[in-house]
């Protein structure tokens, strides 16, 4: 019995050791890209100076300190927080819906937020010009929640079945894209420009305050999701099997949906539409960790953070001196990257 136990533990620990190595690598890469993100910009600041500015701000000059702490660090950390939120939300969505194509973007959360922001831009321009900066993220947040709650409501009617929830999400995507097109059709030229810019996704308008809100949601929601990680793992065997293992599947999905609604809405409301992170992050994580959700969920979050940090660096490097909207970058680097993943997975299945 003793040797039996030891053999089992050897096998179990060997698998987990590989996963911990993957987590360490992802964490290091995310930190590295975030650090590079802080060094990248019009003013040339090298890595040692950035590290000095971060660890002992008094040792660098005032200009460097201001650039690092006021301008670049909030952007770099917002990229990481938004990427982590979308990666985690996408992973949980894919797990509870049992569909690898589920993500906040493909199920219309981004479209809902985009419409909310557009509505705020049009209304604030016409009615409350001074309230625009506040109204846009609030409205984006509310409409992102409206999409999530609509999917959830349709899911409840359909017994939280995967099909009803995915179809509702796709319907929401088309509905809010159409509504946004309608708004743009009637909006003034200035408003259309502002709407288009918002939907591109942009990190540059972030502040420590906005970052704190995104981080607060992420920090509050992550432990609640992780506490159910074994139950999510059981869902990988199918709803019926999970129920046979004594898991109350419907309440679990309801709780998950509320949490991922908060995560996705808080992530997109300040920075605009960010595609592909919620889809690509979980796919990379799944290749590294398998379906054990105790590793898959944090790895998805880390992958999302890593891709966003890298995208932020690229967005500032494409044209020196100017910043490309990050939503465009994530999609551009995401698509070919995704094709590589598909080919790799096809080969590994043979």
């Amino acid at each position, binding site marked *: *019995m003793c040797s*039996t*136990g030891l*053999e*089992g*533990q050897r*096998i*179990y620990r060997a*698998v987990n050791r590989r996963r911990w190595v993957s987590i360490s690598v992802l964490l290091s890469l995310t930190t590295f890209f975030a650090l590079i993100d802080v060094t990248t910009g019009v003013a040339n600041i090298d890595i040692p100076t950035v590290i000095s500015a971060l660890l002992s701000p008094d040792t660098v000059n005032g200009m460097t300190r201001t650039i690092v702490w006021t301008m670049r660090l909030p952007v770099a950390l917002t990229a990481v927080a938004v990427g982590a939120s979308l990666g985690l939300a996408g992973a949980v969505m894919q797990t509870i819906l049992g569909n690898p194509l589920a993500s906040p973007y493909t199920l219309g959360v981004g479209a809902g937020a985009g419409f909310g922001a557009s509505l705020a831009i049009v209304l604030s321009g016409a009615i409350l010009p001074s309230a625009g900066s506040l109204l846009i993220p609030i409205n984006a947040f509310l409409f992102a929640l409206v999409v999530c709650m609509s999917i959830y409501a349709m899911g409840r009617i359909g017994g939280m079945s995967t099909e009803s929830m995915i179809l509702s999400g796709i319907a929401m995507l088309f509905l809010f894209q159409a509504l946004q097109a309608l708004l743009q059709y009637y909006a003034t030229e200035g408003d259309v420009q502002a709407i288009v810019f918002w939907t591109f996704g942009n990190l540059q308008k972030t502040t420590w305050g906005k970052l704190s809100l995104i981080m607060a949601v992420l920090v509050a929601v992550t432990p609640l999701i*992780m506490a159910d*990680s*074994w*139950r999510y*793992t*059981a869902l*990988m*065997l*199918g709803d*019926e*099997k999970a*129920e*046979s*293992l*004594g*898991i109350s599947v419907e309440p679990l999905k309801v709780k998950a949906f509320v949490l991922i609604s908060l995560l996705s809405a808080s992530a997109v409301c300040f920075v605009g539409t960010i595609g592909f992170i919620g889809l690509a992050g979980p796919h990379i994580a*799944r290749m590294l960790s*398998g*379906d*054990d959700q*105790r590793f898959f969920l944090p790895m998805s979050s880390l992958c999302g953070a890593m891709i966003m940090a890298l995208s932020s660096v690229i967005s500032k490097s494409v044209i020196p001196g100017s910043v490309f909207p990050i939503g465009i970058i994530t999609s551009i680097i995401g698509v070919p990257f995704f094709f590589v993943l598909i080919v790799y997975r096809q080969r590994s299945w043979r």
Partner: protein
Amino acid sequence: MGLSVEGLSFSYRNFDVLKDVSFSAPKGEITTVIGPNGAGKTTLLKSIAGILEAQGTVKIDGRDRESYPKRQFRRMLSYMTQGNSSTSSLSVFEVVLLGRVQTLSLRVQKEDISKTWAILREMSISDLAERPFKKLSGGQQRLVSIAQTLVCDPKVLILDEPTANLDLQNELEVLELIGRYTVSRETTTIMTLHDLNMAARHSQKLVLLKSGRVWTQGAPDHVLSERTIEETYGVLSRLIKGSKGETMVFPMASVRA
């Protein structure tokens, strides 16, 4: 004491799937529910396991199922579904470990790992431990599902078609394992089987369902008769006794033909 079912009824969209089903399943014995397709066997097992909300009473050791704290009830009863398809990349070890999901914490305890490995060894499938579950054959997946059901040391074991997709050798070995397990750990085992000969040989009690009702119940010798099989299955058959006195059914012709 074991498990008893009293007046269990279940309807789906105004269709009565189970009608006033009552029977008892003693501790340390195997009770097998038999009956033709659509008789309500799976619905009955799901109702006992609490997955479907049926009317009626289910008692475990003389105590109403509802009176047990939910968590305790889930730990004492283990249910294996009919299907076992999955597209997940979970390994066999992880799938079996999930049988202990009610007690697992983020950091898996040594006891959980040891019990998982022990059941894999007992069922002679430890060589599959690291393989992805989805890449196994249907029969191997069935064995893994049975291991998953046994790994949590249940007091009540409910198995829906445990031998589906298994070859003859595995079918015999699995039924013998379930028999040994039931006796040695004094579990109350309720299962469904389509093979009447296997049901007669490996069960102490049979419950024959037809159209959601209990047609008859009792020892295999009592339940299986040529007349009963014709009335419930619509099949003409001959019954003979095996070398150990067990009843064996030879189907001859369908009465529908």
